């Protein structure tokens, strides 16, 4: 079952729409969905003040799909903490898209601002444009960053990609700026474009695959050997580095476990 929400009015500032999730919409009538509150600063409005709502929601989150039409560039927190179902955003969107997401699928047919997929635990998040900073990163102070799910950005990303990552996969098809897998303790990050630097800094564990070039390598990554890897469906030879040698590492069965960096030859 699909609910189509069309944004018809732009906010003066920004809207926060953490209530736009299949979990909240499920089992509600269109009127009830229209009465869901979204906020602009300290002011609350019913969703219907800014949008028209059509279609019907499913009984459960899993069988609810939400399609967002119109211009959602100035709307934050769409799909926050969603556990199932699907959201498609047919425009750019603002911060925290798919933040703390646990399941389901969220697709953005445009660009997103920072903090998309923050502390993501499951599900699939696809951004068919660029994303800003802190993609699949941790909330401030939390040592438990992204723990599961798949986050794919078709375009470029900024800094802090997968900071404090512990699980799941991030795929960036364009370039990244700095700080990839910083403080990583697991998970996989694939960057198909170039990265300026600071890849794997302070990483305890976790893997990074880079198909382009890295301008500034961390000194703490040491070359081991060349290996053939299948990365996002394509096989190639990669130079394998381990690190960060400046960070603590656990020892499992007598073997020190490092973070791995694979740089395409």
């Amino acid at each position, binding site marked *: 079952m699909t609910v189509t929400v069309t944004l018809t009015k732009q906010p003066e500032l920004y809207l926060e729409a953490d209530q736009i999730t299949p979990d909240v919409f499920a089992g509600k009538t269109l009127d009830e969905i229209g009465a869901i509150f979204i906020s602009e600063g300290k002011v609350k409005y019913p969703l219907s003040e800014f949008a028209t709502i059509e279609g019907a929601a499913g009984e459960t989150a899993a069988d609810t799909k939400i399609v967002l039409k119109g211009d959602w560039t100035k709307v934050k927190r769409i799909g926050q903490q969603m556990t199932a179902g699907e959201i498609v955003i047919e425009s750019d969107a603002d911060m925290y898209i798919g933040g703390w997401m646990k399941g389901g699928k969220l697709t953005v047919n445009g660009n997103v601002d*920072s*903090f998309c997929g923050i502390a993501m635990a499951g599900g699939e998040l696809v951004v068919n444009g660029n994303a*800003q*900073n*802190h993609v699949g990163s941790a909330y401030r102070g939390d040592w438990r960053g992204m723990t599961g799910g798949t986050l794919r950005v078709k375009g470029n990303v*900024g*800094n*802090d990609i997968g900071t404090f990552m512990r699980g799941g996969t991030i795929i960036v098809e364009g370039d990244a700026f700095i700080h990839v897998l910083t403080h990583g303790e697991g998970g996989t990050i694939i960057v198909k474009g170039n990265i300026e630097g600071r890849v794997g800094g302070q990483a305890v564990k976790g893997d990074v695959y880079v198909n382009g070039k890295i301008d500034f390598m961390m000194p703490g990554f040491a070359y081991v050997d060349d290996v053939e890897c299948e990365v996002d469906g394509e096989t190639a030879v990669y130079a394998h580095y381990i690190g960060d040698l400046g960070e603590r590492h656990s020892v499992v069965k007598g073997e020190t476990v490092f973070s791995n960096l694979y740089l395409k030859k």
Partner: protein
Amino acid sequence: MSKVIHLNMVTQRAVEEGEAMESGKTTQLYFDVCSLVEMNAEDIKELDINPNTVVKVTSECGEVIVKAVVARQTCPRGLCHIRQGVWANQVVPPRTQSTGEPQYSGFPVTIEPAPEARIVPAVELIQKACNKWNGQLLWPM
């Protein structure tokens, strides 16, 4: 055509700036100690100017007219410094890398001689940027 040099810029505190700030940002003293760009002597040479020449500094987000001087706290070649404050902030990129902190240190600029240009007083710069300039300095320096 005059020369242009590409440098990396930082903006930080200086004791002269601190003293002038406490004395008042509308003062001549503040104007004198903050509307400077400090450079390596070799970079000044490369620009083909004498020290104390007025120059235009341009960054990704704006430009400012200041006086080029040889840094007493030596900048290595390729690095230049404007003391933090009104003139520096005409060119500091506001991007924060999602930390809240602008790019005060480490942003590319170009510097070119502008001996005829006027160094604009602080209040005028601020009021113009905010569309609140009425054509006269209400706080004469």
